[in-house]
């Protein structure tokens, strides 16, 4: 993406429109595209969700597997987030192991989920130091029309929120998985909002056109802590442009408001 010659005509158009607060797809600078969430779309997964932000289309699935804890956290389960840019999603995607963009995406989503303390990993321990639940969160990008981070974060979140953990019985050193399920022990729920900077304007939920000409982007995840206070739990700048300090703080304020809007769309019962 970054290696392409910037289509300067398109950039000029986008900037000119933005002067009057408008965008090519008719949105205002702070509008999200239409967000659609479907959960439990893959019955064989313990949790799954598809999310659309306009034409951007992402699926996430959760599988639980028994494995070993990390040596430095023997009493905690493990969460592992991966993302694949499958090649049907964009003419620019190629087969092969994840590239730096897919790895960054997975790690940004992971940090949002992890730092919000969404998943109570201490409840995923089966035999301390030996056997714990591993929560595999796998993200597939199915149609890339911009703002993969927010769509992927939301899909992963919704897959986890609606997932079911198999019950297990521990007898000595053996774990027997039962044919029953419990809800997954979840806590504060992180919502990620990405803004693109183009010229001196900030664009919420950037489209692919906007991403192609942006200077840089900023992604900010907000979660509610134990006291229901709203806190920033993760942040990532991307792209080769710069941000002024004023822009940074303004972006964070906008993201906070938008995260509240998005939070309302979560599967019911969730905060």
């Amino acid at each position, binding site marked *: 993406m970054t290696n392409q010659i910037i289509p300067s005509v398109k950039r000029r158009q986008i900037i000119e429109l933005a002067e009057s607060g408008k965008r090519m797809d008719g949105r205002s600078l702070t509008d999200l595209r239409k967000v659609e969430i479907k959960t439990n779309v893959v*019955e*064989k997964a313990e949790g799954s969700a598809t999310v659309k932000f306009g034409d951007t289309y992402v699926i996430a699935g959760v599988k639980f597997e028994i494995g070993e804890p990390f040596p430095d956290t023997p009493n905690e389960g493990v969460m592992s987030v991966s993302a694949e840019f499958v090649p*049907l999603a964009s003419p620019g995607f190629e087969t092969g192991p994840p590239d730096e963009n897919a790895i960054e995406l997975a790690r940004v989503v992971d940090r949002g989920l992890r730092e919000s303390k969404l998943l109570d990993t201490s409840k995923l321990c089966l035999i301390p130091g030996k056997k714990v639940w591993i929560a595999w969160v796998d993200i597939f990008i199915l149609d890339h029309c911009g703002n993969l981070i927010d769509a992927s974060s939301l899909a992963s979140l919704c897959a986890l929120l609606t997932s079911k953990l198999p019950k297990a019985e521990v007898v000595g050193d053996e774990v027997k998985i039962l044919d029953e399920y419990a809800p997954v022990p979840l806590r504060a729920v992180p919502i990620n909002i990405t803004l693109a900077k183009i010229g001196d304007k900030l664009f919420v939920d950037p489209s692919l056109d906007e991403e192609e000409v942006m200077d840089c982007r900023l992604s900010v995840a907000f979660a509610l802590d134990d006291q229901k206070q709203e806190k920033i739990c993760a942040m990532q700048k991307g792209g080769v442009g710069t941000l002024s300090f004023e822009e940074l703080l303004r972006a964070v304020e906008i993201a906070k408001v938008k995260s509240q809007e998005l939070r309302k769309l979560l599967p019911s019962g969730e905060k």
Partner: protein
Amino acid sequence: MDKKLITEDGRRLDGRRFDELRPIKFQIGVLKNADGSAYVEWGRTKILVGVFGPRESHPKHLAMPDRCLIRARYHMAPFSVEERKSPAPSRREIELSKVIREALEPAIFVELFPRTTIDIFAEVLQADGSTRCAAISTAALALADAGIPMRDLVSSVAVAKVDGNLVLDVMDIEDKLGDSDMPLAMMPSKNLITLIQMDGLLTNEEFAKSVELAKKGCMEVYAKQKEALDSHFRIASKEEV
């Protein structure tokens, strides 16, 4: 085999008759970026196929002067199966990618697009048996959606021998516990086979009957494919008005 796959009243575990397909729902044109796309829910098997091309061959030395290069990839999501699948392509996925390409290529007028490539990407979101057949049948629709000239659609279905009976459209448990599995793909209006594989133990007579049953199944899949195309292009042409 401990588990019985055929119930007392001669039905399969999901209630189907021996020669009955599962519910199959095709959707065409479901992706924005792909030149053509289709999605299927085939029982619990769910597959999304995207097609790109004809487009410039890359790397260039792959380009063929007298025809189009066809590439196909069959790929399973980690969460599509009971045990999480590692993301790296398995030997099974590599073989299936090859046979799927060989099942579709005979239907494409490859000589019309020299020096280009057509890429067919099938993503299995949930696997419950007959995924290669579902992928082939759905890819044929995605190719049509991309406007690629074809001799015919390709329709595919698998036949198994299960507790001594030949059954149509094999689901996962029948594949795993059954005695044989035979996926077959054909160009229905040409009456030509483009894929056949088999494992299990069959007499020549049983094999011949399996082939007949598969042919019947392919014809039914073909009808559903054409129906999906009709309704897709009817909607598309309305939208254009």
